[in-house]
């Protein structure tokens, strides 16, 4: 197609706009990266994105301070146990629901859809966790979200699309349902299971709301709550600087910011690692929202 002058101008404009967009996307992240490596305090005061004086000191601080690396272990524990549990529970439950001749199966489905639309609200759930004695236990972050209606519906739809002829021969040979499920259906549903595992893994890694609700003990904090604590400290410091202009505090503050940036970088590493895998499943992940119950 021939292009008019207006179109050419638009193309240039578009490329520039997208480049600006790319800069706006990247710069914040690059600045944090720089702060986590830079120990020269003056380095903050210029526009360069490269560290003035490269060092891994802040990372060492993070890895040596028990109070700081502990939250990461907690988050890892929640993520691994939670993801494994939720994949297992949801896929087994969805398999039962996909059996159309199972009596009562419709009512289970109604229950799930009903619970997706209505909930008791924040305070009743909080009181429940309190009465169960799960306050300050990492299980309070794992268990309530383990069975998810969305995932069950998604898995069930996938199981329904598997042709029954695949399992019939096994049935004739006398295989029980659990053998059929674990030996045939589960391996066949790898694409959907991996999607769900990735998305629920990220949700567990990013747990924040339930953590501030249920966890008060600093030893049990996931990294998100620890970061939030540091943000509050940071902002209080900021306010002080704003009010009293204390230059003496500034270098102290910058060191804090270095540690804080290192924590941010470490916390994103797991996500960056699974990101290439995730990208394959983006569209499916989005369709999670649009499939009806």
């Amino acid at each position, binding site marked *: 197609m021939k292009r*008019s002058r207006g*179109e050419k101008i638009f193309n240039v404009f*578009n490329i520039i*706009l*997208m480049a600006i*967009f790319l800069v706006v996307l990247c*710069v*914040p992240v690059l*600045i*944090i990266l720089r*702060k986590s490596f830079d120990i020269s305090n003056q380095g*903050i*005061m210029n*526009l360069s994105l490269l560290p003035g004086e490269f060092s891994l000191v802040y990372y060492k601080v993070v890895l040596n301070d028990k109070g700081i690396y502990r939250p990461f272990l907690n988050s890892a524990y929640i993520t691994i146990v939670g993801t494994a549990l939720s994949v*297992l529970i949801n896929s*087994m*439950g969805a398999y*039962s629901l996909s059996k159309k*001749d*199972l009596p009562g199966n419709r009512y*289970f489905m109604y*229950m799930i859809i009903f*619970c997706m639309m*209505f*909930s*008791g*609200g*924040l*305070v*009743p*759930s909080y009181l*429940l966790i309190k009465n*169960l004695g799960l306050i300050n236990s990492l299980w309070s972050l794992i268990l*309530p979200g383990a*069975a998810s209606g969305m995932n069950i519906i998604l898995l069930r739809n996938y199981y329904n699309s598997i042709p029954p002829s695949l399992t019939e021969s096994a049935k004739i040979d006398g295989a*029980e*349902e659990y053998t059929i499920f674990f030996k045939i259906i589960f391996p066949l549903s790898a694409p959907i299971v991996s999607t769900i595992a990735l998305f629920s893994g*990220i949700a567990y890694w*990013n747990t*924040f709301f339930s953590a501030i609700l249920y966890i008060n003990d600093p030893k049990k904090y996931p990294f*998100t*709550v620890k*970061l939030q604590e540091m*943000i*509050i400290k940071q*902002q209080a410091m*900021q*306010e002080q600087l*704003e009010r009293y202009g204390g230059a003496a505090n500034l270098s102290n503050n910058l060191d804090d910011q270095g540690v*804080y940036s290192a924590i*941010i970088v470490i*916390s994103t590493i797991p*996500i960056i690692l699974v*990101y290439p895998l995730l*990208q394959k499943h*983006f*569209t499916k992940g989005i369709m999670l929202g*649009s499939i*009806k*119950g």
Partner: protein
Amino acid sequence: MQKKHGIYHIFHVKLFKITCYYFKCEVIVFERKKIHRGESIMNIKNATAISNPKKVKKKKLFTKNNIILYIMFLPVLISYIIFHIVPMPGIYLAFADFRVMGFKDIWVGLDNFKYIFNLSNFWDSFWNTWVFVLYNYIFAFPAPILLALLLNELKGKYFKKTIQTISCLPHFLSWVVIASIWISILSPSTGYVNFVIKALGGEPIYFLSKADLFPALLTFIRIWKDVGYNAIVYLAALSSIDQELYEAAHIDGAGRFKQTIYVTLPGIKSTILVLFVLSFSGILNLFDPVYVFQNPMIASTAETLDTYIYKQGVVQARYSMATAVGLFKSVISFVFVILTNVLSKYFTEDRETILW
């Protein structure tokens, strides 16, 4: 029966059976027709029972297979009962005065609601929530559409792919991480943005202490976080538009801009509507993004219903009052879910998108 009848007898019996069967079939057909006409006398179940005795067997509840299936469903069932069904009756707290364990709660009817409706900070958080919702629909909703349209016009394949890859990443970061990144960048003394402002000769601005600025700032950060991820759906919709339509439009003399208006936008109209309608479902859920940015200086605008419920209910342990606020919020959300349904029925022929 006597043996001497022999073959005849067998023949007769068979004939009888065949006739009977035929007759029954007729009856069934007759009955079914009647049922079809809506004047059933005999139960259809009886009719089938006569014709095919094997089908009468009732579905057994506890065959070995079913028990295994039930056991497989058990973890989900238990978890739903404990974490979803059990807390539901807790809504009664909104109508009661909560007492410590062991004491009976006192039923107070609508007193809790009367109390919260007289609180000014409740109404503040209520209207603040709506400000966020409004900003969200004005700016954050169209942003991914615009991004998808612009990306679609890009010619360089790798450039496009790079932008897509990078712009999706922030979506998967926790709000706390996002907040710490932005707080560090917007800091007045050490932040990058203010450094640029200073370098250009301006006064440093402490963005996160300006209450009036906060809704706009948060909306910007929300766009920064989610725009790439939300654009994926639109990009998928754009790629499914028939290329011949563009050629036809080009032959008719439409430029790129007119092609966008008359071909591209109608092509993704249904996707936009579906996502618009679906976005109503969690319209008032605003906890993480607001809570992580909160500081005392912007308390007047950075308080939504969700953070208010958390503070009243969990931090200050005013359970009844927080449940009442929560119930009030759910009622509004519920109205929106119904509205969603009505709208989706009105807008789309695609029945898939209707919730019930």
